[in-house]
């Protein structure tokens, strides 16, 4: 193995300069001659029967080139996938309906009904105004508990609104509560939230000389080329995705967004077609993070030992299934947190309603579980008059322990209670309030989050590495880069292994036909999966170089390393062969200086969903966050003063990128805790812009202190673990627990707005 020369360093990413110079072309910065502009006509109602769609007036408008309805879609109904090349079945794949169909139900406000392509954006908009729709309005159902009742309005065509159910049973729950000396029950409500990436969805499609549909789009999943091909009823190899650098994703660009629409319009008009969502359309049309209702019951001994935990989750899936089943599974597996609890009963029900559909969001279902268990454990500590750190110390898992839900044994390092201790201590001296109305409080939370996909998805990633004759390095990977530095990391790994400086590496990425498929940039999987694929490919090339150089230098290849473009004899770097000469020697001998390698995650079967046991994820990352808040008890306003985020990342391959994830995840969590609420009134969105849907600004955000633990124990390259999603765990309950510490108010319905806090603090006044 090469030493850490390039890996482990905070090297600026290859895309950073193009971004600060304004040169990088995002999805909506790209135009083609003769292109048409697309618009989507969407439902104004959350629940209705679509009686008829009349497009005759729209079609006859000058400048309109196509108006399409469901009837024009070759395969309007397929199943939702997210890049997996195996079919899981068992209710995991939901319905993907491209456009609403006459005679069937409309399920949410914003559901696409018709598509327009026109010579200008204005004409396309006017054509949409000319589309005439007849609806038969239906009552709809908006609350998931209502939707579960036997006589509830049915959102879709099936005879139940329940998408699926999951369970986990460990020990004997009744015996556990019987043995408990303290029992606490609570209920938490967590709203829908939006990804609010700065880049709205955008894409352009065109036909090439051979009739292939090309789609240039900002997507986290270029494997959707298969799904779009199914919609178009074309062979998979006739649809090509060219992924752009993405202006933020967080799971919101994991499902298909604009692609099917522009592909259909291009197929019809034979012209390039561009579609860019407005912010309002983006907020209305793309998925949300699942709203959850959580009923928790926890039982413990007086010494703080937890003996029983029961949780019942009701996940609000909104109008269509999309990735709901997977989210439910994540929540179920995560429900006990990183605690050793002998008696456990978890039940999760995911339910359709006539709200916008919910799907992937950073953290999947793990965050909602984390908010619940870290809130109720804080309550338990309070009831037992225990220190929040102490109760976590007493109950937490250690390396070699199993999750209390699935009983999957964690073989890598479990950085607990270490991370909690470090985060708690990292808050430093308590802030002293100078104002009697400003109360200061502190909160702690810890947890585990998977990195890598569910093992029964049978995940793999491929990467290609090639040494050019001039000693420059080419990396090819289908990896989508959301902004986390995913693509640059592969360059860094290849450069490290082949002793080439970063300036001499060029990565060609995110093309579904020309770069090896690396799988989705989701599930905190790219460092782990594609990092390992890049490492495997680079090491194959490296070994060939070393073997050839060993012949030339007449030494054992084990004695050689590649450092700064020289193949050197270890410990005696005066003896060396320039890398370009080693390359020449290989080329002259016909030795391949390229490799395309595939890395496979561990594969398992589909678990029994009523009682999930065994391995469901390759591994987990462990960490903790601590927060200090100031609450104004006259207004209820919360100011987050300090955040400490501590995670075991195994090995920080690029520390600046790791910090970037941890800092960004923490601040996104401030929004989740205090302000973000994608509210709907009977299915109608109440926050149609970023002036109503409030994400944290620079003044709302404290300077996050990051503490990185490097246990070296991860499954990724060089012992790395993933950090993208884990960094967004813990922060919300840490803030909620800090608010309780400051005021005695326990927020059970997120977000913790000033209004909710002041109403709780001045209960007597408000209830008069």
């Amino acid at each position: 193995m090469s030493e850490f020369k390039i890996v482990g360093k905070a090297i600026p990413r290859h895309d950073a300069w193009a971004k600060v110079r304004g040169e990088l072309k995002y999805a909506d910065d790209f135009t083609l001659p003769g292109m048409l502009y697309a618009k989507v006509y969407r439902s104004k109602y959350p629940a209705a029967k679509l009686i008829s769609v009349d497009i005759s007036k729209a079609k006859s408008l000058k400048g309109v080139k196509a108006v399409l309805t469901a009837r024009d879609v070759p395969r309007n109904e397929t199943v939702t996938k997210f890049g997996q090349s195996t079919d899981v079945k068992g209710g995991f794949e939901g319905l993907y309906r491209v456009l609403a169909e006459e005679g069937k139900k409309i399920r949410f406000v914003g559901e696409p009904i018709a598509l327009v392509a026109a010579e200008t954006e204005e004409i396309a908009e006017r054509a949409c105004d000319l589309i005439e729709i007849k609806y038969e309005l239906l009552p709809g159902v908006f609350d998931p508990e209502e939707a579960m009742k036997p006589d509830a309005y049915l959102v879709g065509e099936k005879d139940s609104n329940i998408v699926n159910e999951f369970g986990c049973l460990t020990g004997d729950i009744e015996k556990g509560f019987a043995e408990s000396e303290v029992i606490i029950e609570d209920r938490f409500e967590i709203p829908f939230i939006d990804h609010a990436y700065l880049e709205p969805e955008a894409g352009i499609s065109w036909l090439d000389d051979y009739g292939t549909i090309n789609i240039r789009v900002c997507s986290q999943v270029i494997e959707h080329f298969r799904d779009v091909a199914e919609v178009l009823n074309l062979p998979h190899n006739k649809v090509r995705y060219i992924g752009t650098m993405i202006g933020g994703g967080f799971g919101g660009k994991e499902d298909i967004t604009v692609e099917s629409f522009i592909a259909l319009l291009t197929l019809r008009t034979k012209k390039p077609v561009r579609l860019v969502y407005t912010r309002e359309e983006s907020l209305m049309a793309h998925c949300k993070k699942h709203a959850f209702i959580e009923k928790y019951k926890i039982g413990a001994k007086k010494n703080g030992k937890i003996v029983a935990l029961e949780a019942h989750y009701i996940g609000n899936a909104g109008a269509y299934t999309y990735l709901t089943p997977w989210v439910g599974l994540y929540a179920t597996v995560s429900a006990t947190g990183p605690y050793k609890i002998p008696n456990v009963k978890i039940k999760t029900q995911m339910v359709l309603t006539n709200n916008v559909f919910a799907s992937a969001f950073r953290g999947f279902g793990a965050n909602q579980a984390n908010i619940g268990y870290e809130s109720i454990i804080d309550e338990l500590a309070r009831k037992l008059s225990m220190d929040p750190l102490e109760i976590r110390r007493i109950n937490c898992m250690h390396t070699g322990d199993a999750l209390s839900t699935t009983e999957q044994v964690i073989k890598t390092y479990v950085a607990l209670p270490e991370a909690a201790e470090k985060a708690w201590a990292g808050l430093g001296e308590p802030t002293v309030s100078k104002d009697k109305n400003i109360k200061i409080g502190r909160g702690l939370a810890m947890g585990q989050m998977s990195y890598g996909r569910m093992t029964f998805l049978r995940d793999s990633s491929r990467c290609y590495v090639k040494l050019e004759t001039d000693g420059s390095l080419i990396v090819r990977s289908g990896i989508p880069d959301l902004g986390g530095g995913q693509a640059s990391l592969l360059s860094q790994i290849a450069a490290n292994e082949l002793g080439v400086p970063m300036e001499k590496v060029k990565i060609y990425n995110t093309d579904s036909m020309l770069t090896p498929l690396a799988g989705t940039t989701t599930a905190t999987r790219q460092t782990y999966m594609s990092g390992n694929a890049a490492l495997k490919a680079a090491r194959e090339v490296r070994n060939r170089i070393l073997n050839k150089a060993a012949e030339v230098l007449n030494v054992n290849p084990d004695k050689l390393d590649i450092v700064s473009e020289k193949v050197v004899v270890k410990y005696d770097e005066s003896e060396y062969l320039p890398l370009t000469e080693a390359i020449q020697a290989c080329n002259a001998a016909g030795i391949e200086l390229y490799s395309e390698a595939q890395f496979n995650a561990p594969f398992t079967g589909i678990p029994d969903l009523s009682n999930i046991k065994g391995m469901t994820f390759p591994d987990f990352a462990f960490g903790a966050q601590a927060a200090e808040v100031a609450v104004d008890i006259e207004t209820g306003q919360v100011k987050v003063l300090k955040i400490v985020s501590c995670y075991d990342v195994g090995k920080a391959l690029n520390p600046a990128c790791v910090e970037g994830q941890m800092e960004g995840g923490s601040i996104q969590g401030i929004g989740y805790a205090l302000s973000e609420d994608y509210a709907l009134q009977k299915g109608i969105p109440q926050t149609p812009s970023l002036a109503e849907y409030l994400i944290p600004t620079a003044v709302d955000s404290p300077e996050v202190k990051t503490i990185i633990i490097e246990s070296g124990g991860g499954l990724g390259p060089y012992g790395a673990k993933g950090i993208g999603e884990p960094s967004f765990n813990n922060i919300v309950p840490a803030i909620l627990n800090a608010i309780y510490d400051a005021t005695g108010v326990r927020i059970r319905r997120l977000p913790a707005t000033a209004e909710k806090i002041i109403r709780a603090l001045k209960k007597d006044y408000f209830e008069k």
Partner: protein
Amino acid sequence: MEEYRVELTVNDGKISAAAKPEESLLKFLRRNGFTEVKCGCEKGDCGTCTVIMNGKTIKSCITLAMQANGKEILTAKGLEKTKIGQELQESFVRHGAVQCGFCTAGMLMAAKGYLDTNPEPDKAEIRKAISGNLCRCTGYKKIVEAIYDVAAENHRLEGDINV
């Protein structure tokens, strides 16, 4: 709808093009090839379209193209020609202040506009100055540090070593 000719300077280059009265400066600039000016909301909420017009930081989505007639506009692509702009670009790269980059061009313009008026701000002042520019990736810490580093250089030049 009637169109009017708009003449303006963008990063030292003259532009003369027709614009509809209701067209925003953002759309006008993007239509004329300045795609570094990003469109994140078109309502003045997100700041990705921030440019500097005659020395003043503005959001181009809520400025009409016609209001820019005869004015000088600076965008991210013109930053390299200014000393502070160059320093800011270099500092953003060095600090890892760029993730997805969609806010970056606007953020740099907000930072440049602010440092032009207040060359020696503290971090709290910087946070306030960029609070009209949203970033969803970074949590702002590295952005603030990157701007502060450029400002700190100004502090040092002024002989103030207590930065």
